[in-house]
């Protein structure tokens, strides 16, 4: 996943420099995650604000 580090390191502190991770398990799921990312992004374009406003819960324990 090429862009992991960008935002993670930019907002607060300097995160430690990433070491190159081993290929394998991570790479296998990359395609599925990439297409999920596109789906999430598409879904968030409509009604995100309305969704957030209408999510109201009563306090619990």
């Amino acid at each position, binding site marked *: 996943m090429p862009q992991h580090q960008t935002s993670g390191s930019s907002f607060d502190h300097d995160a430690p420099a990433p*070491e190159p991770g081993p290929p394998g398990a991570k790479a296998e799921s990359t395609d599925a995650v990439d297409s999920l990312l596109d789906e999430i*992004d598409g879904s968030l374009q409509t009604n995100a604000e309305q969704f957030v406003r209408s999510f109201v819960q009563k306090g619990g324990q």
Partner: protein
Amino acid sequence: MRVVGIETEYGIVDPARDQANPILLSSRLVNACRLWADGRSAPWDYGGEDPLQDQRGHRRERATAGADMLTDAHEWNPQHGLISLRRRRGSWEDPAHLNAVLGNGSRFYVDHAHPEYSGPEVATAREAVVWDRAGDAIALAAAARYAQEEDSTVALYKNNVDGKGASYGTHENFLVRRDVDFDRLARLITSHLVTRPVVTGAGRVGIGQRGEQAGFQISQRADYIETEIGLETTLRRPIVNTRDEPHADRRRWRRLHVIVGDANCFDVPVYLKVGATSLVLSAIEADDERLDALVLAEPVAAVRTVSRDLALAATLPLASGESATALEIQRALLEISRDYIADADDAQVIARWEGVLDALGRDMFDAARDVEWVAKLQLLGRIRDKHTERGDDGLAAPMPWSDPRLAALDLQWGRLGDGWASRLTDAGAVTRVSDDAEVERAMRQPPSSTRAAVRGAFVGTYPQLVDAAGWASVVLDRETAHGKLEVLHLDDPLATTHPLLDELSQG
């Protein structure tokens, strides 16, 4: 390990009706759960609860009350153990407190304005994960049944905040030896409870109880923790809760009721919050003096510091005058806990705990398959990067944290069934400790390692005989000469059989 149980309050929404009454939705959902169970469920036995008992000794007179001091008439039967007789009462159930004790030993019910799944008692961290996931699956099955029964639907959320100020809990319960001094237990476990979110946090968009400040933090629950120790669970929530209701022989046991944890959609954090915490409790029970060096100087402030420290670099002042990061404290607790490995399950907990701490210390994104807040932050980061825009100053900046799309992603993360955490899991990007087939079995079957096996078997196999059930009781309603209800006492959480159950199953 030790006997443990997890309770989850789910967020509940009717997607078509913002204003729907959540108590009514929850009640209808529990009713749908009973229909899903197809008769294999029982009402809750309110006979044995004592939620006002305080660990610090108030109402001490009950501390010596054993089963032989129960106020009901009782008789000792050498074949069946202690059985109390109880008069029949009306069978009216308050719809606002509807309950379903299920064949897997759990309780699914309305708590405040939320549906809650209280998982059965388990005895290993892996069982905790399996029966926690089974709870999600039961809640989803109930929601599917609800959609058939009603002309509307409900969506359920496994999270702890709505971003408007409300918080609802995910509680862990640990059986702890009674002879451990409670004040010392509270002081020592606090360092673990405050620092473990680096491993167990679910991540949250928004800072402050109402998300007043834009940003991301590690824990859902941190901003709602306001005091070190106390009895409350709905206001001024404490790091260590003092409710003293062991649901077991109180001369031998306490139940440590942990209310600071996040709801987790990933397996590894559930596995570690139960497994690692249990090992730290073993060190406390053994009075391990190395723990004293880890006592925090300002625990409540540290809860917030840890939750906002995305670089995992902030130092926390210790009572000794020194200071340490949350990761360093977790590592020290891991090293101490090594000496309390009692079985192969504990050894696996240690190995996984160490692996996660190593990854977090190397590059936190190496832990994205295991640690929920890291995976959430990574996903949010990729969405933010995708929408990088050049500002008036000509500099490129990612989508700001105040963008409602990020808050929406955060809320949708924990939606049961189709939430982004589930979708990420389906995409193979999340480490599993459980497998789907055993989770499906665990929707109907209790763990075999605790008394939940007895409760589950009575409810799942002989529901027609069960009047009600609780953690430490099963109330039978059957043909007898005395004509009363019979209360079977299950005071030993590790008793996995009951003579009467054996007798019934032999026909």
